[in-house]
């Protein structure tokens, strides 16, 4: 099976993708590099323990049960609850917005879709390309934590790490799906990107603040962020969370296909 559209897009993305990987690896590497310091300096932990609860929640810390020297808590706090998941969200949203709406705005779709290419195939191949990008970035993160973790003496559950990273890939893909849907409706990259990233950040806030604001708690079930990151390294991401994310992604992509097939192309 040949996928000329996905292959073309991916080939075009080699360079920017490399920079995403470099940035993420550098960030994760720096976080891992401070682990020995945190472990040996109880003062840092005491400082963290005195953070306001809201701040702790934003970084995925559990105020009641919190030991940064413990590998799982450390990774949860610094890699799997805020910045890194948001990086996946932002990459996904931006790519989901670009691969259809961005191409349409650019004007090249007029030529491509004058060829015998089904709109459905176009959207599916582009969605696949975005997932591949997210997987590559996820793989880079996974390898960085495995290798870097070994260097700084983390006691790592590699299986759990793999699942947690996979969940981040799915998280990015879900917001790519949101951007695809908005892009397939509006044909405007900026709107698609903005809406998807905005919903992504909102879902992050709901997920992290639900821990301290009890009225928010029921809403965390609406937050893809919660499904992907809640206790990712401490408890592990349960299979049904992954299933929810996969299902959501499937629904979003199907919606994008349906909407794009019915749409007229901007000229």
């Amino acid at each position, binding site marked *: 099976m040949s996928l000329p559209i996905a292959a073309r897009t991916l080939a075009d993305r080699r360079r920017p993708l490399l920079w995403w990987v470099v940035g993420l690896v550098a960030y994760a590497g720096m976080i891992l590099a401070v682990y020995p310091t945190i472990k040996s300096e109880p003062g840092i932990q005491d400082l963290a323990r005195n953070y306001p609860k809201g701040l702790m929640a934003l970084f995925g810390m559990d105020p009641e049960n919190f030991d940064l020297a413990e590998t799982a808590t450390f990774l949860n706090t610094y890699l799997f609850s805020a910045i890194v998941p948001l990086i996946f969200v932002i990459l996904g949203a931006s790519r989901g917005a670009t691969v259809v709406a961005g191409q349409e705005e650019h004007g090249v779709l007029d030529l491509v879709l*004058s060829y015998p290419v089904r709109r459905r195939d176009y959207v599916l191949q582009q969605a696949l390309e975005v997932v591949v990008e997210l997987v590559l970035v996820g793989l880079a993160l996974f390898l960085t934590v495995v290798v870097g973790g070994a260097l700084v003496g983390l006691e790592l559950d590699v299986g759990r790490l793999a699942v947690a990273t996979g969940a981040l890939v799915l998280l990015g893909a879900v917001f790519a799906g949101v951007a695809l849907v908005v892009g397939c409706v509006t044909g405007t990259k900026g709107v698609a990107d903005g809406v998807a990233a905005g919903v992504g950040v909102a879902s992050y806030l709901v997920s992290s603040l639900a821990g301290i604001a009890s009225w928010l708690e029921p809403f965390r079930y609406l937050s893809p962020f919660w499904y992907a990151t809640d206790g990712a390294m401490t408890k592990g991401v349960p299979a049904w969370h992954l299933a929810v994310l996969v299902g959501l992604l499937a629904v979003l992509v199907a919606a994008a296909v349906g909407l794009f097939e019915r749409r*007229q*192309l901007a000229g």
Partner: protein
Amino acid sequence: MPTAIVTERLTKSYGRARGVVELELTVAAGEVYGFLGPNGAGKTTTIRTLLDFLHPTSGRAEVLGLDSRRDSLEIRRRVGYLPGDLVLYERLTGREHLDWLASLRGGGDATARDALVERFQADLDRPIRQLSKGNRQKLGLVQAFMHDADLLVLDEPTAGLDPLMQEEFHDLLRETVDAGRTVFLSSHSLDEVQHVADRVGIIREGRLVAVERVEELRERASRRVDVRFAPAVTPDPSAFTGLPGVTDVSVRGDLVSFGVTGSIRPVLRVAADLDVVDLLSRPADLEEIFLTYYRGDEAADGPGDEHGAAS
């Protein structure tokens, strides 16, 4: 004769005035059809509807006997298209781009492509972002013609081409229709298409205002004739006024000028008996006829009024 394109009361409305209104277009298989109109008249809207980028508000279109909505994939399999506003992947070289486009049709034979590339002297080795408008347009033409399309839909195909390449392009059109294929091309200038089109349809403000055979147009078009008299003679315009086909007689110095429609014989006969030193007949200016349609002159108003503009 089978038809390549038929539209039935095809209407595409936008919020604003743009669009097309009850377009009845018939393009026969094997002809070159020039679709003429000023910018914004609805040419591109029509073309994009044929390719299912736009959906008709009402009416319908058939391309190669297939429904423009339902059978779009099959239509696009058999059509070669050059967009009016050609956008390519800037980072690819011409070769990479053409290869990739070919792969969208399942790849295949590159001989037709190579022949076209040579013909247009298209630059395949440089990244497209380094190419001039004309060189991009060549790639656009190559991609439209490189598979054996039954119908070529070309939106302003000669934009940016130098005269030599335009000539080459005209030859290519002839060969294309000689091979039994059909060409539907849009332009805002009759000059561009009068040597290649069999028929032209003129669209203004979304309505088809006339469909003409180019030959007939040429016969009906008005020639400008200047008659120069010997220096000693006072030019007498009255000798020409009233001759069949003669209009707009005027005198300037020793020169009498007028327009002639149809045969020039009556004029020659009269001139032969006068003290004339020179007679200059300039070719029919078809463009002038089209401008009357474009401007929406009274005489040209309404479809079916075939002889309005020439009278």
